[in-house]
């Protein structure tokens, strides 16, 4: 215990002494440090903070030192995390390598693969992207068809991947391919790693309705991948991918935590943008009703998460309730975005940067980009399938 107390004291002192003031504020996505060969730091402070943390091994505090980490125990890592949260320190490095592939490699990778890839991830030298979805395989991911032919010492890849996030900025990809067409569709899928500069790869960013393009189409045309770049067993890639999904959710929650808190609440928008009577009551009765409805539901959803935790601690939790969170949370979030843009009126439908305030632009942008929430990571319809099967025990369709 005294060791941990000492660790905590030293950690706090070090963070206070070394974390630049500008790195102790919330950050937007564009300020995130993703690393990789093509990456330019958003500021000198970001670079300084990143270098200091890499030296400590604190970008991946729990990874062993030979893998680029600091070899902290889970108690120590918790202390570090907590202190960083308390002091408001930004994550020095984020991304798919650190939060998704890394943990999967630790579980499924060979020693050689760990030594090869983990240190480069922890030091931010290589940025990773994920090649899962295909044009014909979205919600039904296991139907994927990207073909990997066995050519003795290597696989020959042909096919297309969609929604490769930041595929144009990444150096390497972890990818699901089909090595066998027979049997259950989940079997015959293999988890592969390869360099995005391998001949035969074409990456094309896809412009989205927001005007941005975080995602790419990735075309694989006779791409040769050495066999020692398979993670886990051949034909068992589905298990690796599922394990990784858990890490994806943790990552999303972590990113959310680091995002700036919204400047205004929904009712602030209503009061600022809509007319009220002499008692301060909104004159638009429909908006007023929707606003009350949203605030009541939003709070009830948060309470449900807390209730699940407390009932879990008391050993009185009905596990079936866990199936509703993705569905109910994302539906309410998009409902909120829609409500805000409705309140903003034309100011919530602007495109240029001169006639609309930064906040108006953000809200308009969020309304569009958050439409992805009810689609990505299992669409609302897939979630309802899950609730009806797992929580209600209804029969297969």
């Amino acid at each position, binding site marked *: 215990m005294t060791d941990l107390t000492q660790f905590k004291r030293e950690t706090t002192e070090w963070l206070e002494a070394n974390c630049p003031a500008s790195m102790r504020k919330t950050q937007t996505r564009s300020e995130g440090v993703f690393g990789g060969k093509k990456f330019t730091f958003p500021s000198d402070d970001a670079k300084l903070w990143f270098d200091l943390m890499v030296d400590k091994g604190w970008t991946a505090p729990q990874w062993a030192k030979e893998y680029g980490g600091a070899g902290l125990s889970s108690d120590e890592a918790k202390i570090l995390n907590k202190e960083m949260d308390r002091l408001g320190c930004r994550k020095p490095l984020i991304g798919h390598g650190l939060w998704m592939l890394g943990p999967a490699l630790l579980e499924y990778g060979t020693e050689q693969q760990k030594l090869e890839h983990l240190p480069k991830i922890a030091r931010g030298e290589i940025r990773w992207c994920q090649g899962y979805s295909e044009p014909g395989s979205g919600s039904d991911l296991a139907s994927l068809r990207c073909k990997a032919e066995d050519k003795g010492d290597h696989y020959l890849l042909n096919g297309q991947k969609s929604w490769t996030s930041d595929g144009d900025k990444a150096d390497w990809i972890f990818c699901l391919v089909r090595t066998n067409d027979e049997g259950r569709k989940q079997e015959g899928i293999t988890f592969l790693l390869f360099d995005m500069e391998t001949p035969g790869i074409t990456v094309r960013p896809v412009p989205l309705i927001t005007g941005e393009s975080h995602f790419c189409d990735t075309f694989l045309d006779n791409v040769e991948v050495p066999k020692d770049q398979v993670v886990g067993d051949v034909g068992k890639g589905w298990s690796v991918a599922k394990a990784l999904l858990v890490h994806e959710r943790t990552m999303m929650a972590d990113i959310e935590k680091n995002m700036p808190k919204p400047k205004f609440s929904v009712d602030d928008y209503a009061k600022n943008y809509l007319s009220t009577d002499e008692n301060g009551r909104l004159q638009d009765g429909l908006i007023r009703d929707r606003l009350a409805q949203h605030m009541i539901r939003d709070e009830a959803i948060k309470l449900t998460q807390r209730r699940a935790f407390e*009932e879990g601690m008391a050993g009185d939790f009905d596990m079936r309730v866990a199936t509703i969170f993705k569905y109910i949370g994302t539906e309410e979030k998009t409902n909120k975005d829609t409500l805000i843009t409705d309140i903003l009126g034309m100011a919530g439908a602007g495109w240029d940067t001169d006639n609309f305030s930064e906040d108006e632009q953000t809200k308009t942008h969020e309304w569009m980009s958050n439409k992805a929430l009810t689609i990505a990571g299992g669409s609302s319809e897939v979630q309802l399938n899950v609730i009806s099967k797992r929580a209600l025990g209804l029969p297969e369709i």
Partner: protein
Amino acid sequence: MPLALNEEQRMLRDTARDFLQNDAPVNLMRQLRDDGNEQGYSDELWHKMIEMGWPAVAIPEQFGGLGFGFIGAGAILQEAGKTLANSPFFNTVALGAAAIIHGGNEAQQQTLLPKIAAGELTLALAHEESNHHQSRGIQCQANVDGEQLMINGSKQFVAEGANADLLIVSLRTAEPSDKKDGITLALIDPSTAGIKINRVNMIDSRNYAHIDFTNVIVSAGNVIGELDNSQTLLDKTLDHGRICLAAEMLGGAQAMLDKTVEYLKDREQFGRKIGAFQALQHRAAYMFAELEIAKSAVIHALSAIDENQDLALVASSAKTLANDCYRLITDEAVQMHGGIGLTDEMDIGFYLKRCRVSMQSLGDSGFHKNRFAKLNQF
């Protein structure tokens, strides 16, 4: 504020569940309805509840109560809602005892609360004056003359109004001013001269009454709380009722969801179980999710009572969500059962009817969202 039951409260809930499923199944309610029982509950059941100490659960220990708090009362009501078990419990404890706990003077508390706890006294709140729940604008008048009040006016839709031993009546005793709201609550014996109780039959087969007061004389000693200034006490009492009624409603919603899901797994059409149709699966899944978030708002509100927190927002949130999910689930229960859902033989109609009355009681969702908006200044 805790959102999970503690060990004792869980035991209370589990005991209540077993007891009510066995001793007060929906058939008991059906029997009362078929017999035209005007009281709307079984004396035998109420006596068993008293033996188990239920009227005492939410009464503070110094007044002969068991100190389980309103979370305990809510757990019982939720289980009672599952089988539509009616008794004087709700009106006596959630409204009557709440008013006395928060507004009664020491003498009133020491005489009345132990009697409630022992099951020797039942209460009803005579408050509504129209088809829609209101908490303001009371017109039922009382003139205060020295040591007595003279009441003229009428109250409507008083739950347990023709059954209860004593009524708590909300009265206008003065015009509102800067200092006082003009509202007074008083305990009145329903057999007092000048009181006329007219029974009203409602679709849920429980006991309701319109009550007329003509020159009814009551001693000023019967006033609960401050004379001419008890709107806050009334609101607090109503909030206790709203929260506890929401708990009962969740029980009914749970029973209807379970029954409907069971039916979807059993009924076959087009050569398969209808529960295999995605159009029904998604609606059932939605019902499940809606009920779970409503449960969180209700336990949060019950917890707020026990922790002595402000109740207005949490009560309005809880009642809104309970109203909406009970309505959704009973409507869907009928629809998914199809034609047989409309037959008297199935119990579904009983829940549908109870749902409609409880939605209107103590505020529908429009009332509560309006109140929520006002409290949040928009």
